[in-house]
């Protein structure tokens, strides 16, 4: 422990405590901008580059960044001296002097850390005038939008991408005023090995990194009398959307979400969860086949398009291990434009499928050529939770006052197993519920597999006993953890029967398209709890018992894993370069 004094308050702090952390202990708030501590997912950005959190330390020649300076015995700190305040304000003014300051029409208006900081510090005038940086904007991926003009060089994206996700897309390039965070050789994002997980978007304090928006396209489709526009919602939306409307994190808003979509003009409001149940029956079948010697083990879940792109770039030699199942929303698209179209007698070319997703990579996924049927895309547009909330606001819906409504039939029916797709460990737990019963022929009483749950461990292992088999299950969330796992599998250091990988730490609940958590992971934890609550609330908790799924196979799809199912619900992978 070391004794320190902050603004005349004496306190003891453990060794290694930063001034910022110490100040928090005595309720002193030191403004920060580049700093971000997502301790639980091992992402700490301590670049000390913005110089906003500068404080005075007695005996030190210059000001010290509170975020990156550790306390020492006898340290006397003053956070609000004239000198510190002047420096802090100057730093923010300098940042603003090289910023477009088009806040009124900015994507992040109301959600921008720089805007908030300027407001908190009461900055009313930018005293410095001069050249502003202008760079090429990049929407080449159709998923992730880069506007380096708005970059403040906090480097959070770099830390996230390079250290947590280990994709290494971003680095600072050039020098001095021209310095900017950019992919190697300033390549368009689509030509890089970026997986579009969007975690950089999640941590970007400004609008330098956002999603490519399809809101206007969706409005256009909704207003087109020749189109039949239907919506599907991912499981993670219902536990996060409420945050956009001031509700407590973790509030489940499934009914209001459905009502909102209906009022926006969607002809049918369906649930990706239905397709998640389909995914599970297909994947469980594939798993059992592989256990029986048809194919290679381990089987890897394939619901996460970001993770799929990751393995294509990073482990092209392992492309035979992911399940061939399409991701649930792609399955949904294929089902909607075949089974549903036939059943309701709607020409498939008229159907527009809009996926509401917590994800940015899904925007990329729908553009992949393998997800087309006779020139008709499985899914037409993907909008994020945030974009959906914008549409609700634009339409003038008072979200919290909306009645609770139910999904439409038949693609709105789902089980508890599909809801948990939204969290790390959920897909594998859902698969186990079905695989257990199919292998043993017995009813599974205890449906919850707690060994695969939780945010804290990036790599989880569990052993599940099914009959006389001991199945080794691996779960990784965050691509860095996925990389470690895959390296071990490639090198034969670990063996599993089945693995679930989610690109985003925590799974889809913390996806790149979710409401911004601004560094507060308690919000993500609340979403996680809500997902499991939703699972418990469901009368049916095993995918293969979903009556609408059973009906679909009976009426249209035929055998699980059969020819038609294979054609519509499965896919293949392509080795890609590393750059």
């Amino acid at each position, binding site marked *: 422990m070391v004794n320190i004094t902050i603004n005349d308050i004496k306190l003891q702090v453990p060794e290694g405590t930063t001034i910022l952390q110490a100040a928090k202990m005595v309720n002193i708030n030191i403004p920060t901008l580049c700093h971000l501590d997502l301790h639980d997912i091992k992402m700490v950005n*301590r*670049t*000390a*580059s*913005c*110089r*906003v959190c*500068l404080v005075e330390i007695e005996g030190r020649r*210059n*000001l010290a*960044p509170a975020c*990156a*300076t*550790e306390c020492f015995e006898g340290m006397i700190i003053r956070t609000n001296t004239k*000198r510190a305040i*002047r*420096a802090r304000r*100057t*730093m923010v003014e*300098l*940042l603003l*002097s*090289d910023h477009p300051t088009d806040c009124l029409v900015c994507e992040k208006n109301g959600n921008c850390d720089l805007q908030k900081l300027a407001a908190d510090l009461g900055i009313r005038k930018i*005293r*410095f*005038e*001069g*050249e502003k940086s202008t760079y090429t904007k990049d929407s080449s991926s159709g998923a992730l939008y880069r506007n380096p003009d708005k970059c*403040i*060089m906090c*480097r959070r994206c770099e830390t996230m991408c390079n250290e947590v996700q280990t994709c290494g897309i971003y*680095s*600072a390039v*050039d*020098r*001095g*005023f*021209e*310095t900017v965070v950019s992919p190697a050789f300033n390549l368009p994002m689509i030509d890089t090995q970026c997986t579009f997980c969007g975690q950089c978007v999640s941590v970007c304090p400004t609008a330098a990194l956002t999603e490519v928006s399809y809101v206007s396209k969706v409005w256009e489709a909704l207003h087109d009398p020749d189109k039949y526009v239907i919506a599907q919602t991912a499981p993670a939306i219902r536990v996060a959307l409420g945050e956009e409307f001031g509700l407590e994190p973790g509030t489940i808003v499934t009914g209001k979400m459905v009502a909102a979509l209906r009022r926006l003009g969607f002809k049918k409001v369906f649930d990706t969860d239905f397709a998640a149940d389909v995914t599970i029956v297909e994947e469980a079948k594939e798993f059992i086949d592989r256990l029986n010697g048809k194919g290679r083990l381990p089987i890897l879940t394939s619901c996460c398009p970001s993770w799929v792109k990751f393995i294509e770039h990073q482990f092209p030699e392992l492309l035979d291990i992911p399940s061939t199942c399409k991701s649930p929303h792609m399955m949904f698209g294929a089902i909607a434009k075949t089974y549903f179209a036939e059943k309701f007698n709607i020409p498939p070319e008229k159907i527009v499928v809009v996926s509401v997703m917590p994800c940015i990579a899904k925007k990329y996924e729908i553009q992949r050529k393998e997800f087309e049927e006779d020139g008709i895309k499985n899914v037409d547009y993907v909008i994020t939770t945030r974009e959906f909330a914008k549409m609700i606001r634009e339409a003038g819906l008072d979200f919290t006052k909306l009645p609770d409504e139910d999904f439409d039939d038949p693609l709105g029916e789902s089980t508890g197993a599909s809801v948990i797709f939204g969290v790390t460990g959920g897909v594998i737990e859902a698969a186990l519920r079905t695989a257990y019963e199919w292998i043993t022929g017995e009813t599974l009483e205890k449906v919850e597999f707690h060994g695969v749950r939780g945010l804290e461990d990036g790599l989880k292992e569990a052993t599940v006993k099914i009959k006389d088999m001991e199945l080794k299950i691996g779960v990784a969330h965050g691509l860095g953890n996925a990389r470690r796992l895959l390296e071990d599998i490639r090198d034969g250091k670990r063996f599993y029967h089945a693995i679930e990988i989610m690109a985003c730490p925590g799974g889809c609940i913390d996806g790149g398209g979710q409401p911004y958590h601004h560094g507060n992971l308690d919000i993500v934890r609340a979403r996680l709890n809500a997902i499991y609550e939703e699972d418990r609330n469901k009368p049916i908790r095993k995918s293969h018992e979903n009556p609408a799924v059973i009906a679909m196979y009976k009426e249209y799809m035929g055998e699980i894993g059969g020819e038609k199912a294979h054609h519509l619900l499965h896919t293949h992978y392509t080795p890609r370069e590393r750059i």
Partner: protein
Amino acid sequence: MAIAGYAIGAQFGYIYVRAEYPLAIHRLRIAINQARDLGLLGKNILGTNFSFDVEIKIGAGAFICGEETALINSIEGGRGEPTVKPPYPAQVGLWKKPTNINNVETFANVPPIILNGADWFSSIGTEKSKGTKVFALAGKVNNVGLVEVPMGITLREIIYDLGGGIKGDKKFKAVQTGGPSGGCIPADHLDTPIDYDTLNALGSMMGSGGMIVMDEDDCMVNIAKFYLEFSCDESCGRCTACRVGNKRMLEILNKITEGKGEMEDLEMLKELAETIKDSSLCGLGQTSPNPVLSTMKFFYDEYLAHVKDKSCPAGVCTELLKYYIIPEKCVGCTACAKVCPVNVIHGEPRKVHVYKRQDV
């Protein structure tokens, strides 16, 4: 380095040289090979159990890689940009291991100290700065080159005795010490005995040992701009203060040297310079305002001339130059009008000519 390695138990050292110095790299390679041949580097040095070897790491040509943490990042293959200290390299350095990192000059001082003893070394120099210092004397002096002088020598001795005085017997105006982020010291301080502390007190520094002499033909505002341009180019761009702050200072200086400066600009310039010095992450940003601050301190009248009178006393800032023809002296020979490429001299032969630009 081998001695330093022996002292701290290190077995490997890196010599970091910028790629733009191929001759230095060439000679170093020869020297290292010779040392290996003599058994002064490599395994079992001089037959002892101690082994030490060095490798030359060629830098990609960034000034900032002279900063120790940036240098370490560069050797590791990362972007050459500084990180926050503490931890210092002696705690967490190259490959996250405690690292001893020094300038060549520091290492070069070690063998004579061991040979002649600490008392001998301490007998040279001042109370707080011992030994000698190598300066790279340049600029408007008759003798340019490297000089090794005892600490405590005066600037006058270096410039006039060793440097042989100012070129063309012009008037000395200032000496800039310490490299691009040192300050400018005026004639009043020529007799100050120089060491680390006195130079700092004058708003300059020992820095790299650069020493550039300026005479009456140098404009101090322009000099500040020149050095700041360098710092702007060589800033790694990591921290706000240095990346944006230096740019804004430079823009204000440009305004002033173009005759568009106002009194508020001078206040802003000073405040910004002080804040950047106080707020920057590394030594580059913490010192880059020195040329501005020291010239504002010692040559404020030149700033005022640029801002208030819109004139450059040294006649350097071209935007502020005013041309006119002295009527009493003009005989109307037309020689100047004939050679003027932009036709701004007007007049009849044998009559007084006038200088007149159409655009102003």
